[in-house]
């Protein structure tokens, strides 16, 4: 038994010949302990931490932060009730896409192609590409706004410049590092939580609004924000991304019950971020501040950072935007290439994966071009891009529901009746709201 525990500590040796001795006392490789009980479960949970947390929080990109802020700034606490259903939905859909990934070991694009055929897959990819452009536009909007806050007002210079950096980063550096950088950027938005506690918030009122649904059928602004809020929290790309992340992490069905907790945990963190941003931004509503630029959005952080609120906001916003400007278009390019069977991956050379890099570049270029339109309202662009996501998400949700109910794919892991009821009801609700919004907005015009 001791055979494997023998540590070979180097004795002082006679140096003969050109022996290269290393003086470090090498420890025998740590044995893996069998996973046991409560403590073991926690360890396993921590090891599975990642896919949900990363994906969910990538939703808090430039478009997301802006949408939540505007919700608070335009309507005070009245939209706060949406935090609970949106978080619940996020958890349910992440659970479903994660389950599909764990059971099949395949990405969502693959499953769509194999089960719906090329036609549906193709048109879905076109839609997804449009959403990809919308997201890229939002991120470059975020980049332009934060640069403005940092004092670099000339967007015609800053945006293309950062655009080039964005383009080069994943090719020259590692994708994983970009992902980490992005997560650091998102940590900045923990500031909203502190700021929320520091500002004069009437907590009983917050509690009351949390559980009082309100819906303004004839206010196009409200409807658009409603759809944007859904679309940014449960974005189409997130469902694809999450499933791929689960597959890549090699999570197996046998680990899945632990993995569920990861999904719930990460969903709750996302919900908390939405909650606090809306709460802090509602101070803008109370102070009758009309939000037109990021400068006003940043004022929500004043209780925490005072005069430095703008800088704090700008730095966090910039990192989150740059990260998302890389990751979101890349994930779209991945999905499209997966459908067509093209080579993809940032470790490939340009000539080996021309379609992949072409799609990535195209999204960035169009996004930058839209932001460079003179006099464009950046805040409006960022919210509108999330409206696009919100209009597309019902289609993706329907596809997920169909796939996850197929016995041929999922075996015994098909949806239960409760999950089906909630997800179908929610998808119908979102679709109806989207239609109402479209009609109302078109009537206004």
């Amino acid at each position, binding site marked *: 038994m001791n055979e494997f525990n023998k540590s*070979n500590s180097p004795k002082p040796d006679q140096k003969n010949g050109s022996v290269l001795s*290393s003086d470090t006392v090498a420890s*025998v490789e740590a044995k893996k302990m069998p996973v046991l009980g409560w403590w073991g479960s926690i360890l396993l949970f921590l090891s599975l931490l990642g896919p949900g947390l990363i994906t969910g929080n990538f939703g808090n990109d430039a478009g997301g932060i802006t949408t939540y802020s505007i919700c608070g700034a335009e309507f005070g606490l009245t939209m706060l009730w949406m935090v609970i259903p949106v978080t619940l939905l996020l958890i349910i859909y992440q659970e479903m896409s994660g389950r599909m990934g764990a059971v099949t070991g395949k990405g969502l694009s693959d499953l769509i192609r194999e089960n719906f055929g*090329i036609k549906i897959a193709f048109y879905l990819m076109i839609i997804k590409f449009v959403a990809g452009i919308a997201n890229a536009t939002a991120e470059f909007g975020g980049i332009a706004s934060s640069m403005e806050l940092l004092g670099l007002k000339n967007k015609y210079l800053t945006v293309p410049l950062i655009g080039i950096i964005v383009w080069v980063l994943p090719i020259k550096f590692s994708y994983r590092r970009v992902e980490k950088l992005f997560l650091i950027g998102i940590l900045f938005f923990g500031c909203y939580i502190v700021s929320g506690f520091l500002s004069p918030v009437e907590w009983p009122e917050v509690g009351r609004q949390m559980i009082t649904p309100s819906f303004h059928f004839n206010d196009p602004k409200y409807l658009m924000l409603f759809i944007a809020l859904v679309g940014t929290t449960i974005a189409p790309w997130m469902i694809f991304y999450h499933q791929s992340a689960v597959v890549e992490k090699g999570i197996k069905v046998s680990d899945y019950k632990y993995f569920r907790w990861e999904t719930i945990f990460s969903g709750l963190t996302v919900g908390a971020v939405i909650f606090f941003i809306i709460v802090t931004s509602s101070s803008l509503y109370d102070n009758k501040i009309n939000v037109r630029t990021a400068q006003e959005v940043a004022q929500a952080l004043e209780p925490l950072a005072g005069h430095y609120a703008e800088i704090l906001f700008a730095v966090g916003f910039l990192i989150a935007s740059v990260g998302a400007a890389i990751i979101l278009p890349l994930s779209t390019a991945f999905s499209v290439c997966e459908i067509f069977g093209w080579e993809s991956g940032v470790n490939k050379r340009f000539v080996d994966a021309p379609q992949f890099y072409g799609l990535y570049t195209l999204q960035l270029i169009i996004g930058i071009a839209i932001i460079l339109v003179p006099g464009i309202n950046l805040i409006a662009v960022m919210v509108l891009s999330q409206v696009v996501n919100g209009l597309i998400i019902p289609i993706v949700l329907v596809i997920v529901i169909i796939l996850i109910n197929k016995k041929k*794919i999922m075996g015994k892991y098909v949806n239960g009746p409760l999950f089906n009821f909630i997800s179908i009801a929610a998808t119908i609700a979102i679709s109806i709201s989207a239609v109402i919004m479209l009609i109302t907005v078109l009537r206004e015009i």
Partner: protein
Amino acid sequence: MQETKHFLFLTDLLGRKVIDSSTGKTIGRVSEVIATPKEVYPEINRLVVKRSWWRGSVDINWPDILSFDLPVKILQTKNNILNPAGPPSGNGSDIHIKENFLDKQIVDVSGCKVVRVNDLHLLKENNKIWLVHVDVGFRAIVRRLGWLPWLDRLTEWVFSTKIRDKLVSWKYVQQLPSITTEEHLGASPVKLKSSYQCLRDLHPVDMADILINLSRNERIALFKTLNLPLASETLCEMKPDVQRSLLDGLDRPTQRMILNMMAPDKAADLISHYPLRRRNETLKSFEPAKAEEIKNLLTHPEETAGALMTTKYVALSKDLTVPEALAEVKKAAPAVDGIYYIYVIDESHALLGMVTLRKLLSSSDQSKLSEIMNTKIVKVKTNTRERTVANIFVKYNFMAIPVVDNQNKIKGIVMFKNAVEKVLSHLVRED
């Protein structure tokens, strides 16, 4: 009789209306094409025609279909085929072409690649029809979307050429095991091994490449179909985390058999991740000499020369003459990794020097090894870091470096390729 040969695509048939020629009534639309395997190309024997969602589908034998012209618009059947005899009983070897192949991934054995089937290419010869190619090209996608005329016009205008179909002959098509969920994976022995015959001739490196490009479940399922020697060689070509996930998908006895066939250093790498009890169980199942060797390798901490080295080397006593030495080398040759360097040792196995095979062959018969050996040799200790070992290789251009313990006794040699592999895999993993 005039012979007519035409090519057509599976998607030309799918969705086409089928009409009963006696009554002129529509039976339904083609929803599946079924073939039986023949010597080389499968022959299509019947169509599944979907009538409507409440009446279900009906099978129509291919000979009952009247000959048609291309492009296919409508299929007509001979008289009275819809008799209540019921569908012809299919046997187990039927190939459901759409279900099993269209939009699915296959292995293109000629190109050693995993590709997605965009369409299937059929050959119609008089009233027989064969499955001859799969189409994996972009053109097939555009055709199915109905945009082919536009694409052709565009490419003709811009490049004055057409995009060509990318066809892979059926001979080189290897279907993947149709396993999607983990529960299936555990349950059934995937399929007859004979149907994976054409994968047998692949080089392990290509096989590893193909496996990497599959989803986890498919990977394990396909891996299970390989014969043991190919499986173990393929496993050696993969990254450690993939190796582990593949082995975990197999039952314990098979795992042991595969580990037993692998080179000791690779097997040791894998076994080192096992819990202690499982390690011992596994080692017990090996032949004693091999188990001893692996145990030895396992005593060295990871990322040191000791864990990296192989114990298959040639070491000869300093007192041997050249012809004696050559005979020994010849005897050892089949079993050793590095044959070019012959290490010279004394009675206590202490490393004295080294002779290259070239030197040995060109020396006179009277000389002893101790006279012709090179004593200025570079060696490393069992606990030298593997990065240091790699650096030595870069510096000196050796094919192998001997590894000694504290008493200067030779323990093994590190081969150039192993050192490079290890260090490279570290670089790649950081990505």
